[in-house]
């Protein structure tokens, strides 16, 4: 066959994405597919004894959506907890990160000591979540320094039990998540802004655009794909929120399971009983919720183009 003038590059596309799919199918696909498969089975361990797998159809799902003695459906409660914790942590995180990214990249502000600030705000992300929680524990315990200050200032006679109130536990979890991740988000956004062709800013400047106009007319549209990424990964990360509330509440989601997230719920089933049936069903639910929300966010943010 003779060589054609127009060359099809399609095979390069396939070739370039091949390693990803190979690695995915070899290392991750089987366990993930098993997860969905398992959600239709009774499959757990009691001690060292394996029970199942026995096909049970939708029983695991039905059980998840069966109201408990008080008439509340646990999985919905935990989904609600997760959303609340996510909003409390992620909204300030993205807003502040965006502000900081603009500060750092602004020509007019010319922030000094940038390297210092950029390093410092990322540092909490370097501490392991468990170590970070340990610190928060001692800080906010009934005999800890925060309570000592509160009592010394006369704001309260008795120590405030931060870990026994829904509001304070949620606030602490959100604060920790914020501290751990806002530096990370700032850097992502900054890299996005840095990637924008500088001549566009110069042109805007020459056209007499002020900072706010430049931001909305130049920076934001060009940053949009990265911002979409930030929001969606924050959403996914938020719906998979686990380590901070897990460690801070010792896995109990105290008080009254109001800080139990969906993945903590899932983890309860994977603990001693390795209940792949129920864990599989919960994963499928998380998968559906996240998928729908992400698609919604993705569509609504990218439609404008």
């Amino acid at each position, binding site marked *: 066959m003779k060589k054609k003038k127009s060359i099809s590059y399609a095979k390069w596309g396939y070739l370039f994405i091949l390693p990803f799919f190979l690695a995915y199918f070899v290392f991750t696909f089987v366990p993930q597919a098993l997860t969905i498969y398992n959600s239709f089975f009774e499959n757990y361990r*009691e*001690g060292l*004894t394996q029970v199942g797998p026995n096909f049970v159809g939708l029983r695991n799902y039905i059980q998840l959506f069966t109201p408990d*003695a008080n008439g509340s459906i646990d999985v919905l409660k935990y989904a609600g907890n997760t959303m609340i914790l996510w909003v409390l942590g992620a909204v300030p995180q993205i807003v502040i990160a965006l502000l900081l990214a603009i500060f750092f990249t602004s020509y007019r502000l010319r922030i000094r000591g940038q390297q210092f600030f950029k390093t410092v705000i990322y540092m909490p992300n370097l501490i392991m979540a468990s170590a970070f929680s340990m610190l928060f524990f*001692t800080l906010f315990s009934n005999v800890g320094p925060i309570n000592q200050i509160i009592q010394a200032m006369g704001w309260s006679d008795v120590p405030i039990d931060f870990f026994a109130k829904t509001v304070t536990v949620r606030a602490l979890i959100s604060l920790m998540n914020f501290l751990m991740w806002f530096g990370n988000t700032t850097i992502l956004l900054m890299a996005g802004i840095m990637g924008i062709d500088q001549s566009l800013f110069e042109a805007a400047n020459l056209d007499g655009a002020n900072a706010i106009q430049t931001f909305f007319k130049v920076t934001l549209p060009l940053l949009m794909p990265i911002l979409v990424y930030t929001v969606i990964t924050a959403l996914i990360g938020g719906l998979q929120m686990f380590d901070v509330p897990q460690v801070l509440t010792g896995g109990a989601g105290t008080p*009254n*399971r109001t800080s139990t997230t969906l993945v903590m719920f899932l983890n309860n089933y994977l603990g*001693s009983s390795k209940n792949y049936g129920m864990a599989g069903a919960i994963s499928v639910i998380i998968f559906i919720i996240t998928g729908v929300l992400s698609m919604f966010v993705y569509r609504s943010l990218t439609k404008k183009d």
Partner: protein
Amino acid sequence: MKKCVSAFLALVMVFALVACGGGSTPAAETPAQPSTTSGSSAAPAAPAAADNGEGKVFNIYAWNEEFKGFFEKYYTVPEGVTVNWIIVPSKDGAYQNALDEALINQADAAADDKVDMFLAEADYILKYTNSEATQDVAPLGVTDFSNAYPYTVQAASDANGVVKGVSFQCCPAALIYRRSIAKDVLGTDDPVEVQALLNSWDKYEAVAAQAKAKGYYMTASEAADYRVFTNNATASWVDADNKLQFSPEVEMWMKQAESFAQNGYTVLSDIWADDCTNQMFKDGKTMCFFGPAWYFNFSMGNAQDAEKGCFGDWAICEGPAPYFWGGTWLLAATGSDNSSMLADVMNTFINNEDVCTKLVKDEAQFSNNQKVNNAAASDDAYASEFLGGQNPNTIFVELAKNIKFENQTIYDQLCNEKLQENYREYLKGSVDKDTALQNFYKAIHEAYPSIILPQ
């Protein structure tokens, strides 16, 4: 284009090599550690191992290095055998996860990779003794338990009384009290007299009221004495029909905790939380703590603090009932190809008086050999300065004989933890009692779906 493909493939290869190389270099760099390189076993078989046809690699699973230290000091490994320590931290259940996977795959594992012996704690020991993964040690030659404390043998036995291992230590636990507070409340700090005033739960609760009247707490955690109740439980957490039940003893604790919380006799706290441990300082207001020797020697650091502590202001007595807390058991894995060495190790740590004496003398252990411990009980050299000159062994030898390990199930660890956790929420007033119990049932159901819950 072909060039590009081959370049790409070459790159992948390089990465793969880097990755795999990364995996193999550290091992290659450390042949200095003979205990972990199976290569050394390929050397001409040493006579001892070859004679009895046993394996040349002895694999021990553990979650810390405590027993490893004693083993390396006091046990002589047969010539030609390499001991492999597989140490997995207990954090996030990693130890049991790794051990379970190894035991489940035991049958398919190569002879030198099979688990020979593993360590377990009382909290979850039944999971292993009641399974096929452990073997009867009697045929191996571990038969003399006359000197071991009965509860340590009970704990290592399965439902039919078949013994699957031994404990190398014994952890009887006592009531630990502040001498100065006892003097103020009870008018005495003498262990015998204090014991007479605290030898039943009724007396104990009466003293709690007296302590409160003088401005003290009885305990620094409502769960401080939880184990005293559950160790003596007359019913198991799960009955023969697989139904969850509260033993009378657990109910007694719940009632006591409730009244202690309402009357302000106790701090409401986890036993490891700062709220509780801060009570161990000199300015703490708590009279009683509960624990074995390791607890007051190593976990009551605040009491031993040079400036803020109250070293020497403590003593122990038996308290309302005997119980134990902690301890490590050695279990024999099914499929081990080192039977005689397994038996030898186990016998050494319970029946070799020489070794047991060294454990007591040099390692501050309370050994699992009654004869050796009894000698220590009457030896003034063991007087503890922390306990104001009291010899704790005198109390412990008596306590240890009466400890029971009965009515236990594989569900106990979870049931105990979850009950305390959820009940504390009720005691603190975060939820009502019914919600607390419902949350407790939920936690049980998530971990053990087969247990039938009360409605």
